[in-house]
């Protein structure tokens, strides 16, 4: 008759000792060595506390219908300009040239967030004028909601110049978010919800592009129109207007933020415990060896059912 293992159970061996013994010291040392070194290992191997994390979100962008256009019409520096700011238009005087603009913002995937802006601008020109350079400034309202609520007003700036007079400028680009420091993980972040261009100011310095761009670039959060390939078409027919066609997409952005307390703890905990498991296993084996072989003197309690008295 062959035997087989029909059942098994682990038996708990107890070793007893008093407080002031080598065994007590050993156990305390082992405990310290088990639980503290994993923390050091996890920390020294970098990335223990996560300080920056990212998420994806498509921003809610609206064109604010504020525009500033400057076009150089001769190599000598004659220019025409136009803006949606009445004070600036008044100041421009004879250099004011009102273009015709049509704008459409479109939600292509029907998710309630606009994806796309098409802007068509036709700048009428006098017979002696040619367009050599174009500066166009558009303002947007930009909002993010997923982690911290970001509400800001931002800018897209297009500048293109050529030595050859143009008939058309085509711009197709993305309105990208640029951030210097991560966003907070919650709360309202609206310190940049101020006008990029102060349209209520009657002073010329308020419309100085140096000032506008300079103070805008000071910000932590900005948007920039990334258009690596502007298309400058030459050969304008006499009498036809200069055309500027822009397609600006509002893509999904990867936004970095500073994780909150519990997110930081969660990732640190995972790292700590995964290293701790190894240490627990190793020191368990060491302890078993020490106590089983009586390296340190202890009083083992014999296995067996204690007598019911």
């Amino acid at each position, binding site marked *: 008759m062959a035997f087989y293992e029909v059942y098994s159970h682990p038996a708990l061996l107890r070793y007893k000792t008093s407080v002031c013994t080598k065994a007590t010291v050993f156990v305390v040392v082992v405990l310290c060595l088990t639980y503290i070194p994993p923390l050091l290992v996890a920390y020294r191997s970098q990335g223990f*506390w996560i300080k920056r994390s990212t998420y994806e979100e498509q921003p809610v962008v609206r064109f604010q219908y504020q525009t500033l256009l*400057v076009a150089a019409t001769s190599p000598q520096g004659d220019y025409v*300009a136009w803006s949606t700011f009445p004070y600036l238009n008044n100041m421009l005087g004879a250099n004011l040239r009102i273009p015709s603009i049509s704008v459409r913002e479109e939600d292509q995937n029907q998710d309630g967030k606009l994806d796309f802006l098409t802007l068509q601008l036709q700048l009428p020109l006098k017979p002696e004028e040619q367009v050599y350079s174009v500066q166009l400034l558009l303002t947007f309202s930009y909002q993010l909601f997923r982690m911290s609520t970001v509400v800001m007003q931002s800018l897209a700036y297009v500048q293109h110049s050529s030595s050859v007079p143009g008939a058309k400028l085509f711009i197709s680009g993305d309105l990208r978010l640029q951030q210097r420091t991560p966003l907070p993980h919650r709360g309202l972040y609206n310190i940049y919800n101020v006008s990029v261009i102060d349209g209520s100011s*009657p002073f*010329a310095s308020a419309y100085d592009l140096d000032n506008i761009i300079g103070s805008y670039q000071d910000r932590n959060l900005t948007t920039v129109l990334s258009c690596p390939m502007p298309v400058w078409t030459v050969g304008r027919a006499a009498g036809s207007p200069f055309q500027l066609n822009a397609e600006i997409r509002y893509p999904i952005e990867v936004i970095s933020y500073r994780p909150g307390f519990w997110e930081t703890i969660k990732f640190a905990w995972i790292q700590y415990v995964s290293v701790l498991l190894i240490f627990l296993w190793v020191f368990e084996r060491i302890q078993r060896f020490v106590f089983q072989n009586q390296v340190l003197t202890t009083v083992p309690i014999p296995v067996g059912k204690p007598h019911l008295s």
Partner: protein
Amino acid sequence: MAASAVAFWHTSSLFSLFLLFPVVTANENTTSYNFNTTVFGEQNVTFNFTDNYTTTPPTEFDSTTPTPSSSSTDEPVQPTLPTEPLPVSGRLLTPVTSVDRLCPCDEHKDVCDINCCCDRECNEEVALFTGCSVDAVSSGNKQLCSRDVASYALRTTIDGYSELQSSIQKETNYDILCIQTQNRVDGFSHPSPALPTDSNFDSLFKQFTSFLFGSEENSGQASTAELQASSGYQYGDVMVTAGVSGQRGMFWLPAPSVTADCMDSSPAAFLKDQSSRCSRNVVLEQDCSTLLALSMGTYTSIQLFAGKNKDAAVVPVEVASVVLQSVDGTQTELQISGGENLSPALLNPTLCANVVLKVAYVIKYNPAGEIVNVAVSLVLGFFSEAALPLEQEFHITFIQENVGEVAIHYSGNPGYVVGLPLVSASRTADGIVRSIDPRDTLSLLHSAEDQDCLQGPQQRSPVLFGLDSVSGCTLRLEDAANCSLVFQVLLDVLRGPNYPQYVASFGNSPLDYPLDWVPIKNDFSPGESCSIPLSLHLEIEWTKYGSLVNPQAQIVSIKEVIQTNTTSLEMLTGGSSVLSISSSVAFIPVSAAALPGYRAMPTIDAKLPFDFFFPFV
């Protein structure tokens, strides 16, 4: 009159997106559209549609047959606005859902649309079709388990013509999770919008039109008529001028804006010191005597209101000084006797005289915000056709009444502020003396266009604290023949006029504390042989002084290093016969590294890294 209002319903198959196109014809002759091939110029197309909407929209909508439900609109409807809803909005229409009625490509009313197979007007024309622009029209959402699809196809007959085959099929969705029945009808359509009425129109308008063209609140009206309770101006206010006949205007100070061109109608702000340079493109012959911006009278014949209110006193602009600048740039002050004619005049076809080159206003105000006195200094000069565009310079400064003639400008309090000029002085018998003009200080050569060290009046720029800079000029070898003379001239050029001996260690060092003034060290002794200075270098050592939170910059030593040539000049130039002479300044921080003494963070003695307990502390 066959004016009629016809509404076409187009339903897109997928999203049930409904768009309303009210096409309104007002005159008989426009009932047949002009399909001539006349190409209109874009500029002269005129539209004469009148907006006659009917208040009773058709109850049932069909894509092909117009409903004859339009009311007779011979006389234009004068909408007597009912309380609700607004006449144009009317009732909301129920969407068409039967598949055989949907036809997205039917764009011409009562006319067959070519290759539009679902167009009901095309009976005979179908034979000429080559394909169907829309071959399937479906109703309902793709997620439904079954839906009706009208499909259109063309078949070619034996004689070569096309024949339409249309069928309506039930398309079954074999997805496991499909919608069998749909008891929420609006689940797949856009929520019905709120009907605009008299009462909610404004709120609806605000809700849906956040940004639009022409939404600027201010229409650019000059706010001169604004009268406020306080009589005086406040910081940033636009100053008001009085015209000849008493009308109120704004005090303009030309400034550059989107380009470097002068914007004449930019106002000056009260208490905002401003200095601007801008250029002006003028046609010399035309504009010399006519352009107002060039003539002195434009800037001097201004009368300002002392305050903002109407009965404020009128302060005329006084001419403090007029400086005439000659063609080569030398300036002489004109004794104003009132007799001269200083308006711009064309001397010859390429030269215009008495043109305003620089305008500086000094406005004195009192603590109530009233203007007490306005003085203007002008520089008049020539400009020639070669020097176009003309550059003009405008300054405005505000000084308070009864605080001395001009307040002394400090360059820091007490430590130097980066970007402000060094304070320098020289020693006389009475002690240490400094100029009151903050720009009259230790200065560097400013590079000019002719680059010649020995030519003309040299432009200089003051040494600004904290900014290392370099500039220079060139010396031609043939000019350096008399080297002892050239040596002295070059030294003067490099050092500038009124070369000081002392520099204040702090930005506000008082003159009667001689220990606060650092002498400019100079270990230069002119060599015995013929040597000329090749460079002048100022080495300024400064340190941070005081508390860690608010350290003050203090100059501890300043040294002038003059380098002269040790070999012959011909060797140095390398045969090009032009020698470059440079002047430079360097600011060297010599402060000891700041030790955070009192604001030490609580340290953990276990030598843990600072962010070991990052989210906790």
